[in-house]
Structures are given as C-alpha cells and as structure tokens.
C-alpha cells in the first residue's frame, strides 16, 4: 500500500496535533487517559503484527510485557542499571522469549486455537514462576523508587509520560507501515491467508512467524518498562495479567486486524466508551454492561473493525468515481 499525498498529510496533521495536545489540555486526568490510549494502542499493535498480519492469534501476549517489566525493574533494583538502558534489555528479553515460544510452538506446527492456548499457558507459567522465585520479589512484588529523570524514564508530570507513550506509539505505527510496504509484511500476510501456499511459493514460514513473534516480544518488553516506570510497582498478577492479554487483542479486533491504524482506532474507541460509561452511569457494573454491549455490536456488524468501516466507504467512493 502506498500512501497518497492526502494520507501523508493526514498522518502529519495527526502527529502534530498529538505533539501539541499537552499545550491545550490542562487536565492531568485527560492527559493520563490519552497516555493510556496510546499505550494500549502500542501494545495492541504488537499483538497486531503476529495476530493481524501473520494471522497467529496469541492469547498470552502479556508474557512479553511482564518479562520486560521484570527485566528492567530487576536490573534497576538489584544492579542499579538505569531504565534507559534497562528498556533495551527488556526489548531483548521480550524478543528472546518470543524466539523460545515461537520456536517451540511453530516448530511443532501449532496453529489457530492451539497456538492461542499455548501462549496462554506460557503466560500463566511465567506468572506462577514470578510468584515463586525470589529475585522477582515473589508475591510481594517489586517497588521502584520515584526519582524523575530521563535516565530513569520517569517524569514529574503526566506530560512526560504522555510523550513517552507517544514515542512508543509512533514507533509501533512506523513498524506497521514498514510491514505494509515490505517483502516481510507481504510474506506474513501470505502466511495468514494460506500457509501451505506460502510455503510452496518459497516462503520460510517458520522463520517468518518466529521473526513476527520476536518483534511482538520486543515491543511488549518495552511496554513493560514503560508500565513499571510509570506506576513504580509490579507484581505477578499485574505483570502477567490475562486482562492485558485480552485488551491488546480486543483493541486490535475492534479497530481492525492487519491494518496500520486499527489498534489506535480501537484503543481510542474503547477507552472513550469506557470513560463515558463510567462517567455518566453511577450504578457500579452497568458501565461494563454498556461496554460489553457495544463490543458485541462491533464484532457482529463490523467484522473488519472500525478501520474496515472507513475502508468500505472509501472503496464505494472509488467505485463511483470510476
């Protein structure tokens, strides 16, 4: 997919708005929500690379996040390594975990729901492990000290974290755009559409899938460091929470799998719905019902996600033009 001038301008405009947004938003709460939206979009994009582009649905994507969070946090608390270096160790460990999980499961030909379940099992295994060994702090978790500064990837205002999440988001979008234009991306899509045919046409499907899960792992690792430095506390249930595994696939499916802007659109939409429901409905739990209901609607009527809605109308317009 080549970007037209119009698309390029829109992207530039969006980026500019995002950069200037903190000037116009005075409420810390709103900035925090935006940070969360970007963060979820980022981690959704990591899921999208393996799930949306390569078609390998994982249900334990959180394992990379948790491993990254522990990597940089342990490096910081036990060895005094500043997180600005620790984040690269987290990326490395995430990618390495991806290599192991990918090799083991793809090597033995696990596909579809079996692959999803094995990733869930790995995430649960790591959660239990993190709970029982000593160097992770066990069930007590790890407390990080608050010491703002770029080398610690900590900031004394929400604006700092907002920009941190924006940087992550932009990197994830750049990766997805590169996939759309590159041979590797085309090969991943071919694997998603038909693995046998892809193999017959000379694609090393095993290698491609392992690369994809390694990219996902690296991205997840960085997300872990971000979280740990923002909230200054991690423990096994947070680091390996099934809820985050679900959230990353949810924003992607709602926004549009295998698209550059799907995870961002899904994240924006779901968080907005969530905040509105929470804000306007006082009865506890009802907001969740509303949230669930909207989810059902989208999945039933927009199988290609929100981005698919946009694409369909655009296609119709193209047809009319022709």
């Amino acid at each position, binding site marked *: 997919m080549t970007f037209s001038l119009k698309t390029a301008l829109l992207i530039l405009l969006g980026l500019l708005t995002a950069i200037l947004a903190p000037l116009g938003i005075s409420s810390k709460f709103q900035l925090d929500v935006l940070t969360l939206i970007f963060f979820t979009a980022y981690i959704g994009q990591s899921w999208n690379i393996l799930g949306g582009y390569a078609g390998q649905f994982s249900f334990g994507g959180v394992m990379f996040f948790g491993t990254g969070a522990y990597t940089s946090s342990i490096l910081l608390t036990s060895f005094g390594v500043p997180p600005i270096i620790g984040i690269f160790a987290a990326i490395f460990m995430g990618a390495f975990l991806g290599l192991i999980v990918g090799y083991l499961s793809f090597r033995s030909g696990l596909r579809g729901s079996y692959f999803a379940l094995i990733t869930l099992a790995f995430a649960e295994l790591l959660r239990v492990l993190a709970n029982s060994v000593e160097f992770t702090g066990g069930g007590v978790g790890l407390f990080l000290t608050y010491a703002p500064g770029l080398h610690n990837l900590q900031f004394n205002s929400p604006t700092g974290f907002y920009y941190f999440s924006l940087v992550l988001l932009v990197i994830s979008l750049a990766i997805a755009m590169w996939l759309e*234009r*590159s*041979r590797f991306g*085309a*090969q991943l*899509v*071919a694997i998603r*559409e*038909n693995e*046998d*045919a*892809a*193999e*017959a*046409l*000379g*694609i*090393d*499907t095993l290698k491609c899938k392992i690369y994809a899960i390694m990219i996902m792992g690296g991205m997840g690792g960085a997300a872990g460091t971000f979280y740990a430095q923002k909230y200054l506390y991690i423990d096994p249930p947070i680091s390996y929470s099934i809820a985050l595994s679900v959230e990353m696939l949810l924003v992607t499916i709602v926004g549009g799998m295998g698209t550059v802007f799907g995870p961002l659109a899904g994240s924006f939409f779901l968080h907005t719905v969530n905040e509105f429901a929470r804000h306007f409905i006082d009865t506890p739990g009802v907001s969740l019902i509303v949230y669930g209901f909207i989810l059902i609607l989208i999945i039933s009527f927009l199988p290609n996600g929100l981005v698919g809605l946009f694409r369909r109308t655009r296609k119709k317009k193209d047809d009319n033009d022709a």
Partner: protein
Amino acid sequence: MTMMLEVKGLTKRFGGLLAVSAVDLEVEKGEIVSLIGPNGAGKTTLFASISGFLKPDEGAVNLDGRSIINLKSHKICQQGMVRTFQITQPFATLNTLENIMVGAYSNTSDKNIAQLNAERVADILGMTSLLYQTADGLTVAARKRLELARALATNPKLLLLDEVMAGLNPTEIDEIVEVIKGIRDNGVTIFLIEHVMKAVVNLSDRTYVLNDGKLIAQGTPKSVASDPVVIEAYLGHGAAKMMTNGGKS
C-alpha cells in the same frame, strides 16, 4: 541429455497403505511431461512427495542434478521447482497483483521490482484486467490461472501443475493449453497431473500412467492411451479386450 527432474524408487506409505510404490521417472529440460491415472492412484501424493510437502519413505529426487530429497518445500522452491495445488489455494483477501507479488518476492526484496515482475506474469497469463480484484471474487478459471501465475512469478526451472484444467470449460481449456505451451517455450520445464485427455494429448511430449501407486505405462500420450494395461486400469478387467473386439466380450 540433461535431466531436469529425476525420481528414483520413490515410495510413500501412509501406515499400511502403500500410496506411492517405487516410482522411477524422469523429466528432461524443456519437456512437457504429464502424469495421468485413475482417481486415488497416488498422483497428488507423488507430487507432494517430490515437492517436499510430504516426506517420502524411500527413494531419491534430483532437481537439475542436485538432490532435493528431505528439503523443505520453501527451499525446493528456491532451488527452482514450484508446485500448484489441485484445490486452488489463493490468498483470498489479497488482490490478484498482491497474490502474484508473493511469488515474485521469492527473487527480490524490492517492492517495485516484485510489482513489475508480477505485472509481467499477469500479462503472460492474460490477467491484467483482474489485477485489482480480490482473489476470493475470481471465477474458477481465473483462480486456476492465478495459481499458475503465482508459481510462475517465482521464476522456476520446473513447474509442477496439479490439475490446472479441472473444472474449466472447453474454451478455457484451449486457452490455458496455449498459455502452458507459451511458458514452456520461455524455457520452463513442465510436469503436470491432468485428467483432461484432450489437453494431455495436445500438450505433453511424454506421459506416465500411475495406478495403485505404481507406474504402469509410459510413452507418447497416444500410445499410452491405447495401451491395454492403461485401459484396464481405468475401465476394469477385460475392458481392453472388449474394446478391441468392438464392444463384445
């Protein structure tokens, strides 16, 4: 004489079932060779064993003088042999151009070069008008062509075509026969499985006949078609005698 493909003593078992039994065959450079046989004879299994999709139990396979036995299919493709599927396997949500580009990417990582090659192949196969249609909206005939186009885009030395004419009407068959001849004339060796006898006779220089996993005959398509052993394999015991006696047993 240089052999593009040499298969020696190839055997494939599924449990107790001997699907392909000690098959020897050869395809020369520049030839079109066909493989025919009744349903269930093991033709597709033989193709899958040659192209690395199934692991043969015994035997040797050489492509252009180099052994490709036990290589994975993507490696075999990189060596210059590519297969198509009997049941078409398009990348359904991609359009024709993107489908063919996947094949073209096996020789280049440059998107523009891949696209140029894909467009060139589409032109050879008369698919230029379909370039931007998604594959799941294509007709059966177009999908068969797409299989061929994708395979051709990998720039192979040897094409294994598994029933590219099944389900096509006579006009479409005539068209694709010409296309395949054109591909051969451009220097690609072709080994094909086919049921459509008219096409087999028109196209192939030589024919092998497989029945119950064993080769039972080989030769020119016409000689094979009148071989009593072959007739019996297709029509049952005594059929050859009936035909020579003009229908009486």
